[in-house]
């Protein structure tokens, strides 16, 4: 494409199919404790690595 550049793979829907293992860190255990940002946590699903 010439007029549109896509920055990522857009795989959120596929991630739902293989996801949900629950092994990743709770967001408030990283650095926040007062404001919630879930999307910056690392995926720790061993089947997705």
């Amino acid at each position, binding site marked *: *494409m*010439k*007029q*549109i*550049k*896509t*920055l*990522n*793979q*857009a*795989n*959120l*829907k596929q*991630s*739902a199919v*293989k*996801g*949900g293992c*629950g*092994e*990743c*860190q*709770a*967001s*408030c*255990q*990283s*650095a*926040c*404790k*007062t*404001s*919630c*940002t*879930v*999307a*910056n*946590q*690392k*995926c*720790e*699903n061993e089947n*997705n690595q």
Partner: protein
Amino acid sequence: MIHKYTLNGFHIVLDTNSGAVHIFDDAPYDMLDYLEDEVPQQAPKQMMDDLGKKYDKATLDEAYNELKELYENGQLYSEDGYHNFSAMLKEAPVKSMCLNVAHDCNLRCEYCFAAKGDFGCGRKLMPLEVGKKAIDFLIEHSKGRRNLELDFFGGEPLMNFQVVKEIVEYARSQEEKHNKKFRFTMTTNGLLLTDDVIEYLNKEMYNVVLSLDGRKEINDMLRVHADGSGCYDAIVPKYQKLIATRGDKDYYVRGTFTKHNLDFAKDAVHMAELGFDQVSVEPVVSDPKLPYSLQEEDLPAAFAEYENLANILIDRKKKGEGFNFFHFMIDLDQGPCAIKRLRGCGCGNEYVCITPEGDIYPCHQFVGEEKWKMGNIMEDTFNIPMKQEFALTNVYSKEDCKDCWAKFYCSGGCAANSWQYEGDILKSHKLSCDLEKKRLECAIMMKAAMAETNI
């Protein structure tokens, strides 16, 4: 659903349901004003007539074909099919715990949500017996999960350091037997760090969160001792010593910004100049009547400062002097799965907080709210219906979140803020939402800027 915005000259388009992020030229960007939830095979006549005055036909045809391609590939106006996964949002194992080993503190920070250390419940240290029982509780309630997280919190957890060490020793002794892996973290104000404590934390703690608000005059305004004096000079050298021997383990130097430092980019940069490359500076969440509280009227200044910080970070990164700002961290390809994003922070469901008395609360910010006490580990009580209520608190049960473009990034926000300031865990705290959305816009813009320079 899409979200489009222009920042730093980039026309950015986010497709909410697929997670796709695009950078648009002017023509396709203008076309979005004429489209709603789909890209029809035939370009709308009104759009072509209007935009024909601004662009030549070949440019418009090419732009529209590119929009159609994105649409057909499920990267623009993609459907929300996540209701199929609602069954996965039910009650989950408890795998994460905030252990309040000290309801006491050696500082009296003005903005402390823990009522200056004791959560309004009286000053108390957790006995070892309660700490061990908390480990047993976590093992028992985490069936199906291997990685368990335990954050030593307070108050100031180092005021009960001997018990911390004994709890860690006990937990480690249980790992093999139960096939669990504990990840310990600690959030500390730093005053009690000594060489021995630093050595211990760098060995045992997967992550440490070190509290510092930034510049000395900012830190010392609100992070004060009982006599009102600031703590900057006492803690900064200790943090530098800790980081020097931290190796590749995680840490954050974490601050809070208030109405008094809406120029908080200076504080983030100050921390970087002290040698800390993992930095978090978060907005204070407090009663709007308090003098340091952020209010609606402060938002334009806070938004401008987030943009300023984003630009500073881009410049520094280009010069090889970048540092990591927690709230701008975003991985557009390998972030958490959609199920995690639907579940949200997990408080009251996957995550609980235990007080020195053994009381269970949905998270550290609910402590002392009698209505939300979930039970007591020493009495073997645990309110499962309340746990289920939290499991069902997500972006589809929160009315304000359903149609929000940012729902898969904040995942519904902080339930405690919703309760404290909106009176309902199913409502959204607007001020927090507005700040979160601005941070996301900046973080995505930074990705665009970095992609342009191939950094």
